[in-house]
């Protein structure tokens, strides 16, 4: 299943990106190679021979929406700089200035580093001391989405490593703590205390096994919205379950149950991130979150149990009897 979803995500990204890019080309969204009209305003007392002149720029004053075929209104006068050299004139919009589409996309594609939109000026006509008109041509923009998906793939690969390495400290802290809990026998008290509830969900785990204790800690941390602690506790539980697994590359039923319960996220206290986003408004949502999370937990448990009964998943169960013969399906 994961193989298909994974390949599907990649395949559809290409398909959607190509469709969007072809549509952009067909609609001429960015008006590549067509100079757009500009009205420039100069500050008082400007020197026409200076290399850099601060200006205000109005793009397509006679009809921005008509020129670019958008619904939005054109931007008002924007800050920018006029660069005058022997080779000609160039307009540079101020860094990070708010631009409407499609100018924002043109900027993000053509000026990745500085985030200032630039274009070559033609037909510069000064009108008095403080105004001028000209036409500007931006660098052509093509295949925006194709470039975007490649960029996203590279940056997400980096993000993945940052995320994983960022976990080292918290993981080490909790794994150390759990080692103490195991050696001191504390974990076994927890196992005895929680197994009447947990054993029915995890029948494949032997009685009094420490995995049950780790699972209990993981679910508790989850319930209390302690995501930071829940992950190391859950990973310790996985490690403990892996010791019981005769086929190290295949997930066992208890592993899948643990995963399903974690993805359903039994949250009584909302996660920290959501509290940060919503502020006090989160208080109203306490019950709606509680109801939804409780039902989805029930669905997760039923699905993990029910799907495990299907023949194709029974046949791949590492704990099936008789003992595994050969490698079968790769799912």
């Amino acid at each position, binding site marked *: 299943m994961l193989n298909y979803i994974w390949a599907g995500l990649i395949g559809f990204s290409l398909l959607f990106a190509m469709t969007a890019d072809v549509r952009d080309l067909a609609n001429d969204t960015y008006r590549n190679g067509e100079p757009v009209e500009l009205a420039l305003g100069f500050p008082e007392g400007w020197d026409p021979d200076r290399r850099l002149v601060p200006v205000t720029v109005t793009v397509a004053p006679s009809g921005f929406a008509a020129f670019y075929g958008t619904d939005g209104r054109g931007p008002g006068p924007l800050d920018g700089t006029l660069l005058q050299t022997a080779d000609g004139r160039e307009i540079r919009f101020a860094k990070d200035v708010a631009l409407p589409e499609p100018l924002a996309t043109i900027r993000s594609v053509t000026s990745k580093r500085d985030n200032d939109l630039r274009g070559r000026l033609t037909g510069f006509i000064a009108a008095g001391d403080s105004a001028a008109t000209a036409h500007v041509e931006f660098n052509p923009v093509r295949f925006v989405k194709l470039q975007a998906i490649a960029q*996203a793939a590279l940056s997400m690969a980096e993000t993945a490593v940052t995320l994983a390495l960022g976990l080292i400290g918290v993981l080490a802290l909790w794994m150390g*703590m759990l080692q103490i809990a195991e050696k001191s026998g504390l974990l076994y008290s927890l196992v005895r205390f929680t197994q009447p509830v947990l054993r029915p969900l995890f029948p494949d785990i032997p009685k009094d096994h420490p995995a049950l204790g780790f699972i209990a800690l993981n679910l508790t941390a989850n319930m209390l919205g302690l995501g930071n602690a829940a*992950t190391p506790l859950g990973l310790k539980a*996985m490690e403990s379950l892996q010791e019981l697994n005769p086929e190290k590359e295949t997930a066992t039923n208890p592993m899948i149950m643990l995963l399903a319960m*974690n993805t359903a996220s039994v*949250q009584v206290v*909302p996660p920290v991130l959501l509290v940060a986003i*919503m502020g006090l408004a989160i208080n109203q949502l306490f019950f709606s979150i509680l109801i939804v999370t409780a*039902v989805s937990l029930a669905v997760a448990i039923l699905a993990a149990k029910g799907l495990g009964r299907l023949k194709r998943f029974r046949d791949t169960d590492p704990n099936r009897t008789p003992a595994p013969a050969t490698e079968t399906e790769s799912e």
Partner: protein
Amino acid sequence: MESVRQAIDLLSVFVIPTLLVGFPLYGLYRRVPVYEEFVVGAKEGFNVAVRIIPYLVAILFAIGMFRASGAMDFLVDGLRPLLSAVGIPPEVFPMMIIRPLTGSGSAAIVLDLIQQFGEDSIIVKIAATMFGSTETTFYVLAVYFGSVGVRKTRHAVPAGLAADFVALVLAVYVVQWLFG
């Protein structure tokens, strides 16, 4: 009910300090060489973090590409009539797709909806309930299975997605029922 809530909130503040202090003290009481054992356990932390890297890269890069491709616009446009027919506001639909894929992405959607509609709008309440009541299934999958090197996930994905699907759809109706 409000006092139950506050009790739970208070409890969640105390859990981590209690565990962090309680484990070593209890270990000491049981004559466990607590420092030595802590270091033995903590050594695993690094290995686990490194072990999950390939799994996380695989999942996150595919999701990143999918998000950047503009697939969301196509899906929302295509499914708009169906969504309105069953009473799901199209504004929250990107959230339903993104939620199992990325945590930061779905947080960004909630933030964006707050900007557009304000905290008190029904749209934001639905999106926040979706965020709060489900987890980033594919991230959890990569981290949990990655940490022990499990590649064949059997029915883990369908089970996780079934729970997500129910939660995401239910969030719409529960919020409309409570606040509508």
